[in-house]
């Protein structure tokens, strides 16, 4: 007789039948919806900054979601691996949208965009995060995965510093003591911490035994 399925196995069974491509449609629809809201006064009386923030916020959420995939698998055996590429690519597109609103609608001058990147540390940090995502987006196709082999894995660890830079970028632009950027930074550092092999912890266990 077969052993009864664990909850994780049952969830994975359902997920196996769910394709990843609708995530792209959802992402595009969400981006378009936010833009439409900005256009029609539904993001408040200053829609440029609001739209900029909405796109940046969505990008950070997607980065957190992408980083959560591996720990989720390790700790619960629930696998979202097949959705991770879509999550990562969408994060890149929302960062691109965030950057575009900033450069085209907010700052409105290439010269000032460049000056801000050089002169304002929180912009510099955000820009570095954006640049870091570009090679990841470019190599997020099957061909690159095959061609790069083991190098692909190393390259895509670039998302770790990118995530931290993204959270620092948010923290840096906030005025006063604000909770939200700290929550993002905490989540990201926490998710990265699950990837560290804690030698100390194992020694601790041995001592207990």
């Amino acid at each position, binding site marked *: 007789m077969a052993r009864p399925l664990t909850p994780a196995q049952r969830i994975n069974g359902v997920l196996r039948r769910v394709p990843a491509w609708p995530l792209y449609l959802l992402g595009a629809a969400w981006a378009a919806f936010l833009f439409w809201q900005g256009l029609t006064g539904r993001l408040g*009386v*200053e829609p440029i900054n609001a739209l900029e923030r909405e796109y940046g916020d969505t990008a950070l959420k997607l980065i957190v979601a992408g980083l959560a995939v591996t720990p989720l698998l390790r700790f619960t055996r629930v696998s979202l691996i097949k959705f991770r590429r879509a999550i990562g690519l969408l994060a890149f597109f929302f960062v691109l949208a965030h950057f575009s609103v900033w450069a085209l609608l907010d700052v409105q001058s290439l010269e000032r965009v460049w000056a801000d990147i050089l002169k304002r540390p929180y912009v510099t940090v955000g820009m570095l995060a954006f640049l870091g995502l570009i090679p990841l987006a470019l190599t997020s196709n099957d061909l690159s995965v095959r061609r790069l082999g083991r190098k692909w894995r190393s390259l895509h660890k670039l998302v770790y510093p990118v995530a931290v830079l993204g959270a620092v970028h948010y923290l840096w632009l906030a005025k*006063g003591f604000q909770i939200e950027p700290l929550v993002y930074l905490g989540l990201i550092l926490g998710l990265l911490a699950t990837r560290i092999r804690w030698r100390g912890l194992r020694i601790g266990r041995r001592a207990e035994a």
Partner: protein
Amino acid sequence: ALGLSGMAGHAAAQQALEPNSFEEITTYNNFYEFGTGKDDPAENAGAMETADWTVTIDGLVDNPGSYPLSELIGGLTEEERIYRLRCVEAWSMVVPWVGIELKDVLDRLGVQPGARYVAFETAVIPEVMPGVRRGVLDFPYVEGLRLDEAMHPLTILATGLYDRPLPNQNGAPIRLVVPWKYGFKSIKSLVRISLVEEEPRTTWNVLAPSEYGFYANVNPNVDHPRWSQATERRIGGGLFSSRQDTLMYNGYDEVAALYDGMDLEAQF
């Protein structure tokens, strides 16, 4: 003739000021006691009770004490002042305030010779102020002006907006308005005015001295360390609104004489 044309030019600039809508002025606010989001004050400030408001007057004045609002400003001439408001965050509005000149209030209180500065304090009511409960800033919010700035005829205490009483999110029941300085100087929901000898502490200056000076005069030539102050975006232009140049002293050149001989880059 020079003086006349100058005045005509100023009058024209005043006439060209098209106030923002009541909705824009009352839904896009910085009032961190009620939260850091621009829409938080409109959402949360309604619970603040302003009916029996008292303002404490202390320091170097002839008539210190705790004054009901009606007593503090009753009988003084109220007038509409359509002012530009330039936020340190590089956005701006035009607001039709109703208020009285701060000078009239100070004259009534009797400023003593030793006073050189005026210190202001905002109410702290944790029960109705989520931002205070979260400790977003070191509350109470405090601000200050040099006495000559406080006595300038442009400096008002506002109690209304359009033809209505000041909404809570805009600093009801009484707030300072200093149109040639960044908005954060125009402290809201006043509970204390103190005449003092020394330059008073001001909240943002204490929190980030390199970013927010005591004077905080609008100045397109002195950038905030994290963003440029050369241009601003007027609220209400929608998703494709363009930036406009920020004016020295927010366009109120008549205050320039207050700062004669000062290095505005050092004392920003």
